[in-house]
């Protein structure tokens, strides 16, 4: 049991791949087939490129407010890679790469940040809940999804993401407590990227780390190097199995860092220093994973460069397509409020249409 071996109260951090890409302990390396390893890396890289591009589009005035993922690719892709297809993913809002690993298309994700609800309409079988903006509220949804899975006897789990700031929220506590007491199959990943907009992790809680909060719920918790994809994969894999074995939820704190701003409206240079940024840039999850894959002869520098170019073109092509998607039709902004439009809403819509027609619009 990793959660026994790495006790967060003893400040132990689970790491498999150090920040230079070397294996820390062979015994800890999870069994992941080559195809999955490459898929993980490629999704992280696509996430990085698509993220960089999204910031550029925003700076060019083409994209709306966007929440970057740079630096957090391993913390979100590896947990999803450890799931099965039938498992549920419950995102917060900074999980673009994780959502892509689960099957969401970049087009949908760009469409969401471009300002269109269709960007939250994924294929049903992907089992991805929509982006949830109210902080930590999604933890309760995930607890409910997990309860329902257990109720129906379906062998599936819910994986939910929340940030370090979210752990201060009552919703985080209520959701974890509910899932724990009902022994629902839930895996909680805290992407501790050290900053909730401008508020540092130290200002969120007196607890020495976030994983140790698990003790209060009577569940296992583990502090993981969140920029280490192998450790994140192993931790979630174990938590998933425990959940399916009827042991209830596990709390996983992924130590990572938001290399970019909170959103495109934020300027992190105001509140954090360059030294800290440099420290974390050296711990970039993509650099270490790439080295590991090259050492394993699964990837070459040339292939990597080719992939980067391919993803760059793909992002541009996808965003251009999204830009052509145009405005949302009037009926669509009314039609999903209820299953059937109530009479009064029908009238509001038809009155507005009559007005538009009278104006020749």
């Amino acid at each position, binding site marked *: 049991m990793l959660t026994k071996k790495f006790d967060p109260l003893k400040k132990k951090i689970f790491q498999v791949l150090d920040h230079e890409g070397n294996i820390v302990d062979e015994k800890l390396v999870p069994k992941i087939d080559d195809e999955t390893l490459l898929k993980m890396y490629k999704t992280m890289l696509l996430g990085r490129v698509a993220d960089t591009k999204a910031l550029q589009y925003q700076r060019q005035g083409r994209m709306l407010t966007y929440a970057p993922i740079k630096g957090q690719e391993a913390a979100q892709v590896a947990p999803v890679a450890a799931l099965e297809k039938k498992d*549920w993913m*419950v995102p917060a809002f900074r999980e673009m790469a994780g959502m892509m690993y689960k099957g969401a298309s970049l087009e949908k994700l760009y469409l969401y940040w471009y300002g269109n*609800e*269709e960007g*939250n*309409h*994924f294929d*049903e079988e992907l089992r991805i*809940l*929509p982006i*949830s*903006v*109210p902080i930590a*509220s999604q*933890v*309760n*949804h*995930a*607890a*409910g*999804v*997990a*309860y*329902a*899975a257990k*109720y*129906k006897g379906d062998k599936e789990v*819910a994986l939910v993401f929340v940030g370090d700031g979210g752990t201060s929220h*009552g*919703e985080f506590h*209520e*959701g974890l*407590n*509910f899932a724990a*007491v*009902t022994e629902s199959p839930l895996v909680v990943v805290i992407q501790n990227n050290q900053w909730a907009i401008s508020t540092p992790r130290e200002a969120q809680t007196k607890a020495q780390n976030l994983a140790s909060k698990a003790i209060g719920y009577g569940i296992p918790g583990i502090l993981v190097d969140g920029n280490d994809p192998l450790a994140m994969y192993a931790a979630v894999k174990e938590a998933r199995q425990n959940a399916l074995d009827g042991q209830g939820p596990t709390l996983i704190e992924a130590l990572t860092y938001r290399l970019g701003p909170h959103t495109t409206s934020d300027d992190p240079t105001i509140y954090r220093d360059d030294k800290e940024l440099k420290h974390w840039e050296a711990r970039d999850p993509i650099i270490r994973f790439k080295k590991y894959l090259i050492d394993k002869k699964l990837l070459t520098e040339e292939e990597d460069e080719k992939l980067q170019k391919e993803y760059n073109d793909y992002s541009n092509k996808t965003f251009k397509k999204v830009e052509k998607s145009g405005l949302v039709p009037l009926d*669509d902004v009314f039609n*999903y*409020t*209820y*299953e*059937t439009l*109530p*009479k*009064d*809403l029908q009238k509001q819509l038809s009155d507005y249409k009559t007005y538009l027609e009278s104006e020749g619009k």
Partner: protein
Amino acid sequence: MAVETILSAINKTLFEQMEKDDSIVVFGEDVGFEGGVFRATKGLQQKFGKKRSFDSPLAESAIIGGAIGMAVNGLKPVVEIQFSGFMFPGYNQIVTHAARYRNRTRGLHTVPMVIRMPYGGGIRALEHHSESLETLFASIPGLKVVIPSTPYDAKGLLTSAIQDPDPVIFMEPKRLYRAFKQELPDKEIKVQIGKAKTLKKGDDITVVAWGSLVREAEKAIKGLEDEGINVELIDLRTIQPYDKEAIAESVKKTGRLLVVHEAVKSFGPGAEIISMINEEAFLYLEAPPTRLTGFVITIPLPKGEHHFIITPEQIRSKIKELMAF
């Protein structure tokens, strides 16, 4: 046929629907073993097991947020908030998620669920146990809000709410829980959400009420015919989406409107209904459409509550005032 109170009608309906649909789960604070503080869920756990009827942790956000997740994953949660005055920790989930999930995902994920809560004053309770908060739900797009005033409607509306594809806030007039009985059929009955009921026909003035104030209005209009005042009494039953046609048609006939509600006056359902009448029936009016509502104050504790609770005498006085206009 069986004789039921509002409370026993709710209990029977839960039994009936859970029997029929095994995706229904009923939970909330003290809901399982004890059957709720008012016993609305009494016997469900004993009959259907802890999986389907259970005591949740004391956490409204988890009750409602958890229900949202269950609904997304195929269950039909019917949850209880112990008193409407305690719904606020869960209000975030109701407003930011339950009401929006369908729209947010363009119809992919929907959250058919029922949130039951006793509401209203007049039971000599502690602070936060007497509020009428329908205004706070009725102004949220995506929610439906229903309030029965009889055992028949409690059964029929709860059945409809459980079978509804959208989230329904089901507010129960706790003052009437055990106040009177009605004979109800043993089989399933449904009352359409969004349909008001005209309890008494009349030509002189329209009185609109819901929940416990329907009973007070009935007392108020008793004998008024002998004084030459023929009241048309409408039980609104659904606050959102409400039955505009029923009220507008009635006011076109009577020319006078009195809306009675225990929710505080400002920006309440009465304000909405009167604005609607201004839009739909302005030229038919013979007196200013008027509200008789809770004062815009914190509802007093029991020793002062009598100043707040609307009486049949007040309703009668307001009717006469409008007739004399």
